[in-house]
C-alpha cells in the first residue's frame, strides 16, 4: 500500500515535469531565432517532454502489456525523432539556410557564417 502511494506520487511528479518540458520546448519552438535554434526546442519536446511523460505513464500503467507498449513507443520516438531532426538540419544546410550568428547582446560577431 505504501509502495503504491510512492509510485503514484513519482508518476505524478514525472508527468508534471514532462508537461513543463513540453510547454517550454514549444515556447522555444515559437520564440527562437532561426531553424537551427528552433531545433533545440523541438529536441526538448522529443527528449525531455516525451521521455518524462512516457516514464510517468509507465509508472502508472495497470498492466504489463501496457508497459511493453509504452517502452516500444519510447524506443521508437528515441530512434526516429533525432533522425528526423538531423535530416531537417541537413536539408536546411544543403538548401543554403545560413545560421544566425549573434551574441546575446545582439551584436554581430566577426566570424561570418561560412560553414
Amino acid at each position, binding site marked *: 500500500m505504501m509502495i503504491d502511494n510512492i509510485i503514484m506520487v513519482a508518476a505524478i511528479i514525472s508527468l508534471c515535469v514532462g508537461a513543463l518540458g513540453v510547454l517550454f520546448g514549444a515556447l522555444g519552438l515559437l520564440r527562437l531565432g532561426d531553424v537551427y535554434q528552433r531545433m533545440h526546442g523541438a529536441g526538448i519536446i522529443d527528449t525531455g517532454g516525451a521521455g518524462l511523460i512516457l516514464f510517468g505513464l509507465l509508472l502508472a500503467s495497470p498492466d504489463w502489456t501496457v508497459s511493453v507498449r509504452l517502452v516500444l513507443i519510447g524506443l521508437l520516438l528515441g530512434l526516429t525523432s533525432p*533522425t528526423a531532426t538531423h535530416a531537417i538540419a541537413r536539408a536546411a544546410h544543403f538548401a543554403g539556410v545560413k545560421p544566425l550568428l549573434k551574441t546575446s547582446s545582439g551584436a554581430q560577431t566577426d566570424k561570418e557564417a561560412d560553414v
Partner: protein
Amino acid sequence: MSLWFSIVLVAIGVSLLLALARAALGPTAFDRVLAVNSIGTLAVLAICVYGFFDGRPEFLDIALLYALINFIGTISVLKYFRAGTLGDHVPSEKHRDAP
C-alpha cells in the same frame, strides 16, 4: 489521478497551439516541417495520455502507429524538397536542381 492526466492533456494542447503557430508563421519551409514533426510527437503523447485518462490504454497501439507514420512523413517530405520527386520516375533535366 485523472485530474493529473487532464492537466498534462491541457499542457500538451497549449504546446500544440504554439507549434501550430510556428508552422503557420515559419519563414522557411524547414521551419514548417520541424513544427509539423513536433506536432506529430505531441499528438503521440496526447493519444497516450488520453488513453490513460479514459481508462482505455488500448489507445497506445494507435500512438505507436502514429509515431511510425510521423517519421516516414517527415523523411518523405524532406526527400521531396531535395529531389523534386518521391522516386517514382526520373524527373526531366530542366526540373532537376544542381546537386
